[in-house]
């Protein structure tokens, strides 16, 4: 889960980066004559919202509303007590409580006088929210072309990949003959101390596909698959130890 460091590196991702990304979305809205687009976000699906606003919720669900004109607004499932912190790590100035997402969005649209609304990748919206928006005149806005990685995004992913790889290089050979839990714990500690927000580690040995640690002793030959989120940017890196042939079906970040 996202329980590591959540921060905004303003040197690597200056506000102008988000301005440019949001401008691209606004241009798409103008093309479609839509007043706004909504982006869904939860703890396991935060990449789209993060790309546009640097918002990556550690818990709960939220909607990012991007008007064609004006600043983005967060309809937030989290407590108002954490809004100052959210403001400190995202582009949001306006955050509204939204324990129930759909009614909050309907109310917001009424307030703004919007009769139509775009929803980024509407078919992927949770049923509970999508079903309550049907009467609102919602239109699917495909994310294709709107969330293309820019230079800043690629640079951040490269940073994440470098961090992941450097720790893996130093630790992978330390797993032989120890409990897989112990090995995963060491990696987790190193990654999170280095600022990882989330880490998922899987191990492959004895010809089996990668899976989470399960209390087995690692042999001399195994491979490690690390999915790591660093400042909101996910990468996957794999490494084989000993004569292990590597992880079938996996690939490194390129």
């Amino acid at each position, binding site marked *: 889960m996202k329980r590591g460091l959540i921060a905004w590196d303003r040197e690597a991702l200056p506000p102008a980066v988000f301005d440019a990304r949001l401008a691209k979305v606004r241009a798409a809205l103008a093309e479609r004559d839509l007043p706004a687009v909504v982006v869904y976000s939860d703890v396991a*699906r935060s990449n789209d919202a993060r790309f546009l606003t640097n918002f990556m919720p*550690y818990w709960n669900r939220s909607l990012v509303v991007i008007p064609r004109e004006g600043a983005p607004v967060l309809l937030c499932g989290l*407590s108002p007590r954490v809004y100052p912190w959210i403001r400190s790590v995202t582009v949001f100035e306006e955050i509204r409580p939204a324990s129930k997402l759909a009614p909050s969005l309907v109310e917001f649209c009424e307030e703004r006088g919007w009769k139509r609304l775009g929803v980024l990748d509407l078919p992927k919206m*949770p049923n509970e929210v999508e079903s309550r928006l049907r009467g609102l005149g919602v239109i699917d806005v495909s994310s294709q072309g709107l969330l293309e990685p820019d230079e800043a995004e690629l640079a951040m992913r490269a940073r994440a990949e470098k961090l992941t790889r450097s720790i893996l290089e130093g630790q992978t050979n330390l797993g032989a003959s120890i409990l897989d*839990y*112990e090995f995963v*714990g060491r990696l987790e500690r190193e990654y999170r101390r280095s600022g990882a927000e989330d880490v998922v580690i899987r191990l492959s040995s004895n010809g089996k596909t990668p899976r989470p640690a399960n209390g087995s002793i690692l042999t001399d030959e195994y491979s490690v698959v690390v999915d790591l989120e660093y400042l909101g940017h996910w990468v996957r890196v794999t490494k084989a130890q000993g004569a292990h042939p590597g992880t079938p079906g996996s690939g490194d970040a390129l």
Partner: protein
Amino acid sequence: MVGINEHRRKQLMELMEERKWDSILLYGQGWRKDYFRALVNVNYMGPYAAAWLSRSGELRVFVTDPWDREWMAEFVGTQATLVYDFEGNLPGAPAVAGLELMEARLVDPGAVSATAEIEELRRVKTPEEIETLRRACDLADRGYEYFADVIEPGMREFELVAEVEGFLKSNGAEDNFMLIASGGTEVVGMKPPTERKLEKGDAVTTELTPQVDGYYAQICRTVVLGEPSRGQRESFAIFSEAQQAAEDLIKPGVKASDAARAQNDVFRKYGYGEYTGPKYTRVRGHCLGLFPDETPHILEDVDYTLKQDMVVIAHPNTYLPLAGYMVHGDCLLLTADGNQRMNHTEKKLFVKEV
């Protein structure tokens, strides 16, 4: 108790008989794997998984990551089906647990939700589930002991979390939900760790929630770096009394609302009633199981009667002007005539000598 929960399979078959449902689909996604794991307790890694169960007991498992397929087969006994979505892959029109969270594109227009029914079944734990939760509580206790041991001034919040995460994973935790806060009266709630450096005099709060074989247990404690101030001690005494009031009350037949009121009344008694509302706090506790924040929540407006073999945490966590946000809570197993505390960590304001 990793694998198929046979007790649950039987419960689900009885439920289908009662509701005249032909089949049930237990749908899990990245955030909420619990509906799926209620029957097939395997930690899938793909974005979705679903278990389809017919009224006669036939089970089919669907996964969306090829790596899950092989692994799942070891626990399920038959090969899971790899799918991109469920369209055309599901026999009939099942009632769906987790329907509300399902991506709209996957939902059959006539689908019926089984979410509430499955959540109610899950609230009462089987002996095997209770045993797993005991192991999770034990790990929570050891995790907190480690937390209180390694913490020191100068450490950044996220570095402390890294240490604890490493400890929990090394000791078999599958996952962990953890929030933290540090400082004084300016602290109004917990959140993910920041780069803030811990200082002498800080109250450091944490909600530690390790997951063992799918099941989450929780412990909430507060530690002060150095000698606690008068305000910190005074504040903790109120939290301690409030938590104890809930622990003394909770048993089968007691309403969730009364368990909340018992805690809030302690704050009211000391003139801090306004700090028991949503402006300063969220809930006075909740259930635990395959999701770390299971319902019913312990709140004064929740009309739910607690039952034997439920596992709840009573935690009067809130902000008080005396010392800022503070937390204190333990998991409680509801027994036939009372409750049993499942955590064994000392109930005190922890003090780290610095």
